[in-house]
């Protein structure tokens, strides 16, 4: 079974590869990467750290992604090394360590890695506005109106006491707003998360101090990526 180094050196040493050679090498590479398991990595947000300014500062991204999120990744890697969780996908680590609510030590870090990946991808530069298409139809059906969804999501985010998250989820073919404390996320309830906002104080303190309400309305007005929510909804519908 060819090692990565062999494969890469073969690919780079020859200017042209016959199609059959290329196919064989790609398959080896794919096979190798699947055998290693997905691996736990610090994924960068899909935009530069200053791209959400002035609504979410570069400073916040540097600490929130660069220190908090990175810390969860590094601590999780240390925790799972040599255990049966090592090599599992992140989602499976979360479900296994949730342990039906009697959480095992790796849960907090694993869930927070996932939550933060999901959070960065829930935002985009020039975000905000209104959703459209099927997502908007379902919002109107399940909340009455877009404004009503905004209101309910805002209430959930405001009233999640202490640290936690507010979510839009797809469950039983319906859209719902839920909130969760600390690291808990809707995966453990079997829901399909579509959107999240981090309401741990570290998510907004540098930019908004104690004014969580202003952070939430800025998130909804200027940052939320309804495109991401729509793609996630499409993926979730296939699974239900």
């Amino acid at each position, binding site marked *: 079974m060819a090692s990565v180094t062999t494969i890469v050196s073969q690919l780079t040493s020859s200017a042209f590869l016959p199609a059959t050679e290329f196919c064989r090498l790609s398959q080896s590479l794919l096979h190798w990467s699947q055998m290693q398991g997905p691996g736990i990595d610090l994924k960068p947000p899909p935009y530069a750290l200053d791209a959400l300014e002035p609504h979410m500062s570069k400073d916040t991204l540097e*600490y929130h992604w660069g*220190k*908090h999120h990175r*810390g969860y990744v590094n601590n999780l890697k240390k925790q799972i090394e040599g255990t049966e969780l090592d090599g599992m996908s992140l989602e499976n680590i979360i479900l296994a360590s949730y342990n039906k609510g009697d959480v095992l030590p790796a849960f*907090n870090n694993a869930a927070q890695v996932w939550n933060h990946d999901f959070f960065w991808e829930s935002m985009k530069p020039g975000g905000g506005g209104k959703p459209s298409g099927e997502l908007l139809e379902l919002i109107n059906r399940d909340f009455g109106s877009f404004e009503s969804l905004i209101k309910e999501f805002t209430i959930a985010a405001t009233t999640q*006491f*202490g*640290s*936690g998250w507010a979510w839009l989820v797809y469950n039983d073919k319906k859209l719902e707003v839920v909130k969760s*404390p*600390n*690291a808990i996320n809707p995966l453990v309830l079997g829901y399909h998360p579509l959107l999240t906002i981090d309401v*741990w*104080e*570290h998510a907004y*303190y*540098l930019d908004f*101090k*104690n004014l969580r309400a202003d952070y939430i309305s800025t998130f909804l007005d200027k940052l939320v990526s309804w495109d991401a929510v729509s793609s996630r909804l499409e993926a979730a519908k296939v699974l239900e």
Partner: protein
Amino acid sequence: MALRTLATRKTLGALSRFPQQLRGLQTFTLPDLPYDYGALEPAISGDIMQLHHQKHHQTYITNYNKALEQLDDAIAKGDASTAVKLQSAIKFNGGGHVNHSIFWKNLAPTKEGGGEPPHGSLGWAIDQSYGSVGKLIAKMNAEGAAVQGSGWVWLAVDKELKRLVVETTANQDPLVTKGPSLVPLIGIDVWEHAYYLQYKNVRPDYLKSIWKVINWKYVSEIYEKECP
């Protein structure tokens, strides 16, 4: 006839005031700090102290008062489900008020004795239970750093067992939720708002520094009252 009417109106007037005095709902106001906002520097910045006191603690008080008024109303109307629904708001906000009131008294500027280790019976009890003040601090810092999300780390005395205890609570749960006979001696706020502007994600550094401004004199007074 006119006399009777006058008397009735007067009596009615008095009666309408009476229920308020009977219920006597006491609401709360923000206690003053016994030191300036900047007096705990460099351990805790003036910025943090001001926000923490004027915004966070004040908000807990405002919301606690609101919840108490709503509870008072629900009780008067016999509205049991509203009364029960209000319990979480009372725990959050009332707990926030109780905990922060203790916290401000736990702190003192170094030139007023902040950081000076305890002597007397508390010092002795700490040595007995933990080996030394340094070892107690290490234990509290480890437990404080390990609090997931928001909460507090406490040194308490169990007033029944006359024993020192280190405990943590989540969110604004008051210490009594961990044991009805626990009396708080030191509470250290490990919510991110307590340290973020200065220490960012490095909660352990905040925990190391805060001991420089812990008011052990006040802590000893509380201890000696429970364990004379």
